[in-house]
């Protein structure tokens, strides 16, 4: 469904590339976590799939098509096949739940009758039945993210990209959101989720792709957030750093 072939993305000349010859394939119907520190290239990875950015070298294939060959006026068609969810929900504050989801259908010219039929269905899938008339500010964070997910999948995209969808949510709410994403995945949608949330990754046990400095350093099926194969030097330094961090925090408390 998504294939990266030696993809390198350089934003600024002389700077370290955001992605460094990444080769990766994500199959149809797969659920993949994209983990790694901030700046490791997760967002760039997602942006390249959406053709928001152009790869500096290598090719990105989405649904069998090299995105570099998609002309600018056909990019919208590519994006209709991809749903996107963000950490900050990005709902329209002056529209209610129904209108927010319907918006995604209106702008691509779906008829009113189809909208009236589809939106409640999708809202049911994400667990927001009966909240059609609520305004976004009347909803909890988890509910808002469900609206955003509903909007992302209402046009039945084959791929759902989620950029830290649980980043603003507490653990229990996050698990609820994961339930929704899982359900969407079960229905056949390929899900790629960039995250920092180790609990979720450990709970779900799905494929994990770990990026570091723009390189894939780990690609494991049914994996955990942190590698089970210790990379000695690296992990000790990490542990040291976090230990120091811990001591400082304790010192401050005392």
């Amino acid at each position: 469904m998504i294939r990266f072939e030696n993809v390198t993305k350089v934003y600024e000349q002389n700077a370290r590339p955001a992605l460094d010859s990444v080769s990766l394939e994500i199959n149809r119907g797969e659920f993949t976590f994209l983990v790694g520190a901030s700046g490791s290239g997760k967002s760039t990875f997602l942006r390249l799939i959406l053709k928001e950015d152009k790869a500096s070298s290598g090719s990105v294939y989405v649904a069998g098509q090299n995105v570099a060959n998609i002309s600018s006026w056909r990019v919208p068609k590519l994006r209709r096949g991809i749903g996107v969810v963000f950490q900050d929900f990005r709902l329209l504050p002056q529209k209610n739940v129904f209108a927010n989801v319907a918006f995604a259908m209106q702008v691509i010219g779906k008829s009113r009758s189809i909208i009236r039929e589809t939106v409640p269905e999708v809202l049911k899938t994400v667990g927001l039945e009966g909240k059609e008339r609520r305004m976004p500010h009347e909803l909890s964070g988890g509910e808002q993210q469900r609206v955003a997910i509903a909007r992302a999948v209402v046009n039945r995209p084959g791929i759902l990209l989620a950029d830290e969808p649980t980043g603003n949510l507490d653990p229990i709410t996050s698990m609820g959101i994961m339930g929704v994403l899982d359900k969407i995945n079960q229905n056949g949608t390929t899900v790629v989720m960039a995250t920092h949330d180790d609990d979720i990754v450990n709970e779900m046990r799905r494929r994990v792709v770990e990026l570091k400095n723009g390189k894939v350093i780990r690609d494991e099926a049914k994996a955990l957030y942190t590698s089970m194969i210790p990379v000695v030097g690296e992990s000790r330094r990490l542990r040291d750093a976090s230990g120091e961090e811990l001591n400082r925090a304790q010192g401050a408390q005392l």
Partner: protein
Amino acid sequence: MRLLFILGEIGSGLRRNLSMVISVVLVTFVSLTFVGAAGMLQMQINQMKGYWYDKVQVAVFLCNDGSTAVGCASGPATKEQQANLQAMLESPAVKQYINDFQFESQAEAYTHFKEQFSNSPIVDSVSEDQLPASFRINMKNPEKYQIISETFSSQPGVETVSDQRQVLERIFSWMNGASVAAMGVAVVMIFCAVLLITTTIRLSAFSRRRETGIMRLVGASKTVIQLPFILEGVIAAVVGAVLASVTLWLMAHFWLNGDLSTQFLNTPFISSTQVLVIAPVLIALGAGLAGISSLLTLRRYLKV
């Protein structure tokens, strides 16, 4: 559905940016009024040219009692001198340049004078014998005035040869100057209008960046995303153009054809319906300018 959607977007955009939209309307209104005024002046010049050039003639004024010109040393023009001039006008050498000619006697000159200045007290202070008799020559080609002037001005009994066209030319050049000035103001104002439209569209795009961001992500086409913004600018400019057209029409109807035409009975003014010819030009100009400047702005500030 999509049409309704786009209309709704335009409506909300216009509402959100109301003050900017009003300023776009006003600036296009003023600038296009100047463009239209320049156009009206040109139309007026053409109208007057067409009207006067048929009538305007070269006049060969004959000497009368008060003449001081060299050719008039022997006093008022005699019958023989007059007959001589007439013979010259009928001679083939001169005839090739003229359509026809008429003799205007002093009595006729006085009648015309009284008509022309009927409202003025000057009529009372002028008597018949103060006005010169003249030959009114209708030229085939008014540019050949020089030939007539050279032929006749040295003849005995001729006071002066005057090309009445020159008087009109002065008026026309004045009107031309006014229309160039109006055009100059219009150009500056149009420049302002373009900048203002650009800013308005930029603001509008900025205030709706959430919507457009989402539209982009869910795969709305470029048209659906950009059209509302472009139409917003175009609608504002067209409203301005319509206001300008109405203003010009009112000016033509109540001022030119009302006040001025009663004051200057002999002047042919353009009619208010003729002004309507300018209106579509103004509207197209306004819409075109707004459309192009919006489009260029969106290219820079609204990524699709």
